[in-house]
Each structure stands twice: as C-alpha cells, then as structure tokens.
C-alpha cells in the first residue's frame, strides 16, 4: 500500500514546487492568442477608418454611386439594396427556420433515421462554401426553375438558404433552453403539444431566436461572393423598385467593386463603405447581445 506522506516533509509554501514560471508563461501565451484576434479586428477597423476617413461624410449615405464625381459619390443605392435584400432574407428565413427548429426540437423522433438524415443535412449545409450557394442561386433562382432574374429577392433567397442552417441551429438552442418543466407543466394540464409550444415554449424562446437571427443576418449582410454570382454586380444609381423588380446592388458588392478599381478615390470609398458596413454589423451585434443579456436572466 502506498504510504501516507511523512509529516516531516511538510512545507506548504510551494518552494519545492519548481517551474511556477511555466504557468505564467503559458498564461501569457494564451492571452497573446486572444490579443492577436482582437488586435486584428482593431487593425481592420482602424485601417479602414484611416483610409476611408476623407469620405466618411453624409454624401456617403445620401448620394448615389458616381464615376464622374468620385469625391461626392455615395452608396445610397447599395444601402437601400441591402435593406431590401435583408428584409427579403428575414421574411423568408425566419418562418422556415423557426418552424424547422420547432419540428426538430419538439416533434421529431430522433431515433428515426430520416430525422437524423435531416439533421446531418442541416449541419452539412452550414459549412457549404458561400460561393457554392451562389452557383445554386444562379442555376435555380435567377435562372432555372424559379427564373426570378437578377432581382433583389433572388439575392434574398440565396442568402436565406445560406443562413438557414444558422437560424435553425440558433432557434433550436433557444427552444432547447426553455425548461422542460414548463412543457411538462402545460402538458400535464391537458394542453395539446401545439398549445404548449405556442403559449409557453415560443414566448420563452423568442429572445434566443431573435438573438440568433440577428447574428445570422449579420453574417448575411456581409456576404459578397454568392451575390456576385446572382446578379448584384451592378452600377445602379437608383434605389430598388421592389423585391421582384429592377436592378439592385448591396453594400459588400459595392465595396468590392470599388476595391478592385485602380483609382485611389474608389479605394477610399471602399474603405469608407467598410466602416459603414462594420458600423451596421456592430450595431446589430450589440442589439443581439443586449437582447441575450436582457432576457436570458429571467428564466
């Protein structure tokens, strides 16, 4: 049997425990890792800010893009285009995503092969490169079966498909976080399952769903590659007519268009556009985080 330590070996001050510096160095390295990530974010912002500063003016928002007057050119059509596209994304993805999440969390029998297949499929979809969604959008939405043409809603639908897995995942987590005891309490009173969901589960899950959806949208709002393929590559000097009508462009595509132009004025515009886009994103994220912190405490 292993013997107990002899009492004479006492000494609790850890002097005989060498290598304490290892822990400190390790911790410093870990902090460095976090700092790298954050410093880069800062660098992205600062760089764009410094570069775009000359054009961070009201014209950026109030003016249409212009090749002639680069000093006063703005991105109003892209801002409106983004709003249209995003509204289209929300109205498409939220009902489908939340419904799918409710089914998977509340109704699906997870021992069934086909349910697992659906779940696996969603997980997979989440990691499909966005450009592949662009190919899908081009083949099925702009042309092909839906043939919407290069209109704002074609962009919406493409992005909606892209973020659908994210929304489903977030909604599922929000729904799962609703305590089972609420469901049991309601079911135990003879409420039907849908009554239980509608009266208790969904209201309790709304903050989580909203948070997750905002985060998903903040991903969609910055997507460029798929929209390059589905027709947002346009020089438009007017705001979209509607979801199914007319030309449109969006912020990230406009930024990209400007970024690859050789003239410095366009580069500056691109940088200013990036700041604008990051500002929108930061606002969206703050709202999401606020909602999360505000409402998760209550359950």
């Amino acid at each position, binding site marked *: 049997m292993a013997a107990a330590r002899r009492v004479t070996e006492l000494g609790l001050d850890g002097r005989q425990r060498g290598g304490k510096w290892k822990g400190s160095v390790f911790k410093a390295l870990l902090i460095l890792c976090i700092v790298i990530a954050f410093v880069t974010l800062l660098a992205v912002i600062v760089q764009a800010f410094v570069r775009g500063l000359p054009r961070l003016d009201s014209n950026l928002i109030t003016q249409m893009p212009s090749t002639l007057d680069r000093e006063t050119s703005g991105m109003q059509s892209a801002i409106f285009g983004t709003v249209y596209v995003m509204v289209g994304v929300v109205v498409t993805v939220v009902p489908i995503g939340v419904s799918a999440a409710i089914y998977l969390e509340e109704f699906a029998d997870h021992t069934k092969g086909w349910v697992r297949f659906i779940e696996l499929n969603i997980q997979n979809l989440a990691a499909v490169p966005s450009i592949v969604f662009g190919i899908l959008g081009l083949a099925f939405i702009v042309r092909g079966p839906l043939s919407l043409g290069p209109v704002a809603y074609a962009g919406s639908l493409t992005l909606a498909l892209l973020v659908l897995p994210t929304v489903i995942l977030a909604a599922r987590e929000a729904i799962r976080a609703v305590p089972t005891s609420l469901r049991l*309490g309601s079911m135990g009173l003879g409420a039907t399952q849908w009554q239980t969901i509608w009266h208790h589960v969904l209201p309790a899950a709304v903050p989580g769903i909203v948070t997750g959806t905002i985060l998903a949208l903040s991903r969609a709002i910055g997507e460029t590659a798929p929209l390059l393929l589905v027709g947002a590559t346009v020089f438009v000097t007017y705001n979209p007519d509607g979801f199914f009508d007319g030309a449109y462009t969006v912020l990230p595509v406009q930024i990209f268009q400007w970024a690859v132009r050789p003239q410095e004025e366009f580069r500056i515009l691109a940088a200013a556009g990036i700041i604008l886009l990051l500002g929108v994103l930061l606002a969206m994220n703050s709202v999401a985080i606020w909602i999360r912190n505000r409402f998760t405490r209550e359950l």
Partner: protein
Amino acid sequence: MPGHDIPDSPVPVMEARGLNVFYGGFHAVHDVDLTFGRHEITALIGPSGCGKSTVLRSLNRMNDLVPSARVEGQVLYHDQDVYAPEVDPIEVRRHVGMVFQKANPFPKSIYDNVAYGPRVTGMKVDSMDDHVERCLRGAALWDEVKDKLKESGYSLSGGQQQRLCIARAIATEPDVILMDEPCSALDPIATGAVEDLMLDLRQDYTLIIVTHNMQQAARISDRTAFFTARPDETTGNRTGLLVEYDRTSKIFENPSDQRTEDYISGRFG
C-alpha cells in the same frame, strides 16, 4: 393514515396491470400490478432509480413525451385502458393531473397560471374569477395571494409556488392527481403546509405521490408501494420492480419482505 378509514382493498380508480416500461432497449420497470384507491393517498417509495417516477408518469401518459419510452401492459382508469388506441393522451391528462418535484409555475401572473388549464381545455366555467379563487382556496393559497393575483408566479416562495402548481392542477377538475416528490425541494415548514393540503385534497381527489422521504410517506399516505431495482445479471442494467404494496401502517410496522424492512430501517439506500 391519521383519522382516515380506508377499506381493506382499495376501490379502484386507476390500476396498473402487468405494467412494463422501457426506455429504448432499457427495461426500466418490470411487471407492476397496483390498484389506486378512490379518495386515498398512495405513496410510491424506494431507492433512487427504481422506477417510481416512471410508473407515475405512465399513469397519465406523460411518458409519451419521452420519445424512447415504451409501455407494455395496461393502465386502467375507471376500467378503460388509457393506452387503448382510440384514447387521446391529452384527454387522459385532463382527468389525471400532475404536480412535479420542482415547482414549475408558468412565467405568467398567478391568476393566469390557474386559469391556463381551464382555458386551453375549453372548460366551461361561469366565472373564471370565481373559479380561480376556488382553486387557490382549494390549494390553501388564497389568503396569501389574493392581493397580488396579477403578479408573476415567480414572485412567490418555493412552497407557495408548489401550492400554486397544485391550484393549477385542480383547476382543470381532474379526478386523480399525481405528485412526484412534491416536497423534496421545500423546507420543513413549506413541506408541512403542502402535506396538510394533501390530506385535505384527499376528500375530493385520488392522490398518488412519489416520495423519497419515508417519514412523509408514513405521515400522510394510506397505502404504500415499495419498489426496488434489480440489476440484470448480464447487462448490469437495473430494472425497477414492485416489492410490496400494502396499507402504510403495515409496510412501516410489519413489512412482509426483507428488502422492505432493510430499506425502511435504513440498512441500505
């Protein structure tokens, strides 16, 4: 037992006949036969994991909500098998109400908590206000909450929340009320209040309660069922089974099975 005469054999309101419950491939409860008497309190006791909650939940088909759960055998409610194909589990739960271990009021007002059941079941009540008052009185909670019916159910103390859940349960006018360790999260004073309430409720309802607290079973129940868990020799899984079912006084004073006696006297568990 105190001051309550019960017949030698229970007048059946619910019965389990050859009840077996499985979770996936796992045999959780083996061959349980039990008759729950009208206007009696039946206590289910036994060590952790022996299947008490499982048996309780199969009585009002709450186990349907566990996807992997499967029930064999019969559960009769006034001689109808609640697992018969034409039976609607929702309807069963309207007759057989349930109160849980952890008080689980809805994040709504006290009033809405009580009114919820009647509303969703489409119960006809002359005046919801009166009905809510009656139920809160029935749960011995009225005096404490009558001035704050609009406040959230969460604003109550643990014991009050549990009584609110009981008020909520009786609001749908069930016949049987199942309670799964209703006092285990409460302090002794709150426990006392709920125990008193249970004795009151016995006048109008049939109560079936699971408890870990043998003193509680002894104090309030008319009959006691003792369960234990037997490990399967090959898989090592432990399957719950009914060891003994009798009047509570008999179980506690003169059990017929050695395992019951060991448990009661604290030799294991």
